[in-house]
């Protein structure tokens, strides 16, 4: 029980603070008049660029999710169902697992140069580039398990009926692993949404920035505007809270990648 309380108290405290007037935050009393003023200020384009950052975050997360899902499901299909020699599949899977373990700070310099040379520095594309690398390993590993669970006969049956491999993949296999695609996609979305480091170092203005970068600069500039800080932090947590509510098992699998099998 203690750990549950320890986990929930900061979230609850932040949640409450986000609905308080400044005077109620500083009075320290338990009673307060709830207000939406912090959220209104946060999303008022005249006072803050949070609206812009939210749309950036959504574009980047959705784009990352789409690209990662296409690449990862093709690769997972290939590696789990087609006759690769163990040397090659092992090499590829080992590489992406290794990438997953490296601190992302290592990629900053090269990614900065790539973004500069492609002229995409400070755009959503640059951040998306970083997030694709961040998310490919998890998505591929999750989908690999799903593909491996489908009996071989199913695909063979489709091909006897005259489907080619591409058709059997898109019309037979993909529909079956939909839950896996949903889980991998949701995780890619969340991990793109919550990333700070890439968004921080590959952007410099609100035209490419994401919500975490906005919150961080807000916190450091106005360390006293508690209400809006809390509102921003709570808003940023909403996708995660929604995820916890709906899909657990595969998220756990993705998060503990490399430690759990089956």
């Amino acid at each position: 029980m203690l750990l549950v309380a320890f986990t929930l108290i900061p979230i609850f405290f932040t949640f409450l603070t986000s609905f308080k007037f400044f005077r109620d935050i500083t009075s320290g009393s338990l009673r307060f008049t709830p207000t939406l003023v912090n959220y209104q200020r946060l999303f008022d384009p005249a006072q803050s660029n949070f609206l812009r950052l939210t749309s950036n975050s959504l574009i980047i997360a959705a784009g990352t999710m789409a690209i990662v899902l296409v690449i990862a499901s093709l690769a997972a299909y290939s590696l789990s169902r087609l006759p690769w020699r163990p040397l090659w599949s092992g090499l590829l899977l080992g590489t992406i697992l290794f990438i997953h373990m490296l601190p992302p700070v290592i990629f900053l310099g090269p990614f900065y140069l790539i973004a500069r040379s492609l002229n995409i520095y400070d755009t959503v594309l640059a951040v998306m580039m970083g997030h694709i690398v961040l998310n490919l390993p998890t998505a591929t590993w999750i989908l690999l398990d799903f593909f491996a669970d489908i009996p071989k006969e199913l695909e063979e049956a489709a091909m006897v009926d005259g489907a080619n491999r591409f058709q059997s993949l898109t019309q037979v296999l993909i529909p079956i692993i939909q839950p896996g695609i949903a889980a991998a996609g949701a995780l890619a979305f969340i991990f793109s949404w919550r990333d700070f480091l890439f968004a921080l170092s590959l952007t410099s203005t609100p035209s490419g920035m994401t919500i975490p970068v906005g919150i961080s600069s807000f916190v450091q500039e106005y360390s006293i505007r508690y209400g809006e800080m809390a509102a921003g932090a709570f808003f940023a947590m909403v996708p995660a809270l929604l995820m916890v509510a709906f899909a657990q098992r595969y998220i756990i699998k993705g998060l503990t990648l490399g430690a759990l099998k089956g």
Partner: protein
Amino acid sequence: MQSSLDSSLPPKPPSLVSRFGNFVDRTFQYWTIAPLVIVLLMLVAYPTFQLLRMSVSEVDIVKGQAVWEFVGLKHLETALQDPVVPTALKNTLIFVIAVVIIETFLALVISILVSRSKHLVGLYRTVLLIPLLVPPIAIGTMWRLMYDYNYGFINQVLKLIGFVSVPTWTADPQLAMPSVVLVDLWHWTSFMFLIILAGLESMPQEVNEAARVDGASEFQVLRYITLPLLRPTLITAIMLRTIFAFKVFDEIFLLTSGGPGTATEVISLYIYKVFSGQFRLGYASFLALGLSFIISIFVIFYRRFGRHAA
């Protein structure tokens, strides 16, 4: 397929479309892996090559273009003389060791207690998933509010139970590191909990039952059956957590930015500062290379001893 009925008819020449279809089918394994390989080449292999090149060069951006100058091992000399490097390494080690030990212990105790009740398992699984999914920046912001000297939750509670002078937490050189560690416990104990719980749940229950029937006390069951069976899971979890702990960045960036002084300066944060604040791309890349070297050693150990556990 060759039935007598078919052979009586003259064979139809395959159309161009179906020949192309056959070609795609036979080479499908290459088509499907190609996107991944291309992305890995562009966004991992090429950046790795750039990283190696940058770590022996000075790189400047002039009018949006990178200007390279080869400097050999100059960055190694700089690193050896840089007083922040040993401090950052020391802080990172203290941080990693502290969080791994405390989180393992907490997670072990809680998962053993919780695994007895199906009800609790569901609740803990749900609640403890939250910290792993919310943005670390939001975690940092939350804990800034919690630690706030005047209006933070912690100090308000301390005042309520009678403390006259309350600590400044992240601004206190002595308390800054423990404060940061506490936030990490909030964030990552769940990770260890989920792995250890999965290990406990995959354990055969009959052995425990048999021991109890033979008159073993709960403590004996734990000490001589559960823990030894859990050992491989624990080793895997600890190694993985150690590797991930080196990634720590966001929360410290927001809570202390490495301060006060260099009290919480960790290696990822310092690399970022050299890269972004001082804009020394070459030197930052050299340090990043050093860090990836350290992590590689851990990963090799992990693959050697950790993986067959799970």
